[in-house]
């Protein structure tokens, strides 16, 4: 088991290396003049061709790719991810500033996705082909087909435009002032948690109010995904021989389902959860854009559009690192659930 984890951890730097190479080579497809544009805030300042060339050699944009890559890697290993033009700050600071918002959003989204999806998937399977099953399936397939950004915009339109209940952004203006003031201690950067720790529950409520719409928007898609997979796995599991044995022992139906079947059915779901987290990252980008949440997703989208390549590289590495860790966590829990894996 330990060897298993160790092996996975050893591959991690290799994959990160691969990811950075991939992105770097994509960016290298641009000529040095195009890449220079990320450093130039005001084109009017340029005094002509010589000026441009000077800048190009200043930033080493014409050097062989491995030198440029080496320089970047060298910096990374020292903890310096470079300067993000789109954020106007060092990449590390830009990411650190924005990470809590994304983390809060991601964690709050995972909860309804996982629990809602699994519970509904189990219910759907247990009531196979009855009305409940059909209803749940219809909602699932529609949820899976709805584009997130359309759904998000509709939510914004109705719940903010028409009803005024759920505004975009992370906090209302009055709350933002409080949070920025000296009285409020920012422990985590996540407003719900910080609000609790500061005993300021109006902040907590305000933060929650701003999170409802984005969380629902992200969740819909992945909730449908988990539901479908749980359902089909449960249906298969319920046909297994050991379920028949459990019934033959005289166990009540709900024990048979929830104790004997669910655990087995969840094994493949756990492996899929890793893939889902990847997709969740995409959802974060969209949702942060639509609801104006200053998080990592929004940062990545802006950086990519502005070709802020230190920003893109830094962000991608960060995401990659997190994803691999999460996948490792998923694999470990896979081993916890399924004893057959444990003893290998």
């Amino acid at each position, binding site marked *: 088991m330990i060897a298993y984890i160790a092996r996975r951890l050893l*591959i991690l730097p*290799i*994959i*990160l290396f*691969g*990811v950075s190479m*991939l*992105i770097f080579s*994509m*960016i290298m*497809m*641009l000529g040095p003049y195009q890449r220079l544009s990320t450093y130039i805030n005001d084109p009017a300042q340029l005094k002509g061709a010589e000026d441009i060339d000077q800048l190009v050699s200043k930033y080493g944009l014409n050097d062989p790719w491995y030198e440029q890559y080496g320089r970047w890697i060298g910096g990374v290993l020292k903890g310096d991810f470079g300067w993000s033009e789109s954020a106007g700050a060092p990449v590390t600071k830009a990411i650190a500033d924005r990470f809590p918002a994304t983390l809060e959003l991601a964690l709050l989204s995972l909860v309804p996705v996982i629990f809602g999806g699994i519970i509904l998937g189990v219910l759907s399977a247990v009531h196979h082909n009855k009305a409940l099953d059909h209803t749940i399936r219809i909602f699932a*397939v*529609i949820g*899976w*087909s*709805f*584009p*997130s*950004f*359309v759904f998000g*915009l*509709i939510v*914004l*339109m109705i719940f*903010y*435009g*028409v009803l005024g209940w759920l505004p975009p952004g992370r906090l209302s203006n009055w709350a933002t002032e409080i949070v920025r003031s000296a009285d409020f201690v920012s422990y985590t950067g996540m407003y719900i948690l910080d609000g609790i720790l500061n005993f300021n529950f109006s902040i907590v409520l305000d933060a929650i109010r701003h999170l409802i719409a984005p969380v629902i928007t992200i969740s819909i898609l992945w909730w449908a995904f988990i539901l479908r997979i749980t359902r*089909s796995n449960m*249906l*298969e599991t319920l*046909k297994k021989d050991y379920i028949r044995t459990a019934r033959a022992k005289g166990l009540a139906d709900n024990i048979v389902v929830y104790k004997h079947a669910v655990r087995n059915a969840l094994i493949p779901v756990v492996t899929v959860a890793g893939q889902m987290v*990847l*997709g969740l*990252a*995409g959802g974060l*980008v*969209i949702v942060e*854009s639509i609801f104006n949440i200053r998080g990592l997703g929004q940062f*990545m*989208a802006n950086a*990519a*559009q502005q*070709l802020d390549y230190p920003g*893109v590289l830094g*962000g*991608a590495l960060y*995401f*990659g690192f997190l*994803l*691999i860790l999460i996948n490792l966590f998923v694999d470990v829990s896979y081993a916890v659930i399924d004893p057959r894996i444990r003893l290998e």
Partner: protein
Amino acid sequence: MEWQEVVKRLLQNKISLLGILIILFFIIVAVFAPWIAPPRDPDAPYLIPRAGWSIEPQPPSDEYIFGTTEGQYDIFYGIVWGTRTAFRIGLIVVGISTSIGIVLGTIAAYYGGWIDEILMRITDIFMSIPFIIATIVLVTILGQGLTNVMIALITFSWMSTARLMRSQVLSVKEDEFVQAALALGANDFRIIFRHIILNTIFPVVIQASMRMGSMVITASTLSFLGVGTPEGYADWGQMISFARNWILGVEGNPLNYWYTLIIPGVAITLFCLSWNLIGDAFRDILDPKLN
């Protein structure tokens, strides 16, 4: 199961029938686009004609039955020709990326060893970058335009097919049927070929049909974020990006500009829904265990 049986069942199943009908509708719209919404400039049919230059979207009227977006782009025209765009994106992206995935997955499974290791690590690397972000980066580098969008989508979407194909081929390799047939001399190569294809292709086909929908959604997401087709191109996502500033309506009537969002949104959802319905029904039919 024979092809005829599969098709018959697909048509009998109410769910897949609905999906097929919706797609047929879209196909008809796409094929007859030049007649349903005649282009102003026959050489550039994908440029949505404009009813004027004012910023404010106009509601549906007799002349423009779906209304116009910000900048007066004709929504009806955009929907009709956007259908063609959607099919182009779906078929090309899914076609090519699935082919790449099939080839790589088969090679990895067939040869095994370090070829398999390397291919799988490469797949892992590609899979470690969130799809949207990778495509945004690539499109930004390549420049806006439908072709570049498709290239970006293909580059980052072959992995799931490769993995699926690989696991399918691996399981068939161990299949006793194949081993027995080989032991018998396997003169009827066609039987084995058919058996392997039958077992490996169907899950890939199911996955491909679901991806038709998701690729169109991703493409429209890119357009929405401004990193997709150029302004004024007949693309459903593009039209929604114009709706962004108007979804809050005006004072007193927040739903004033609903048509800028809802109409293209419904188009995308129906398109994706129909492919998902077919894929779902297909899976139910081919998987006897779930019957």
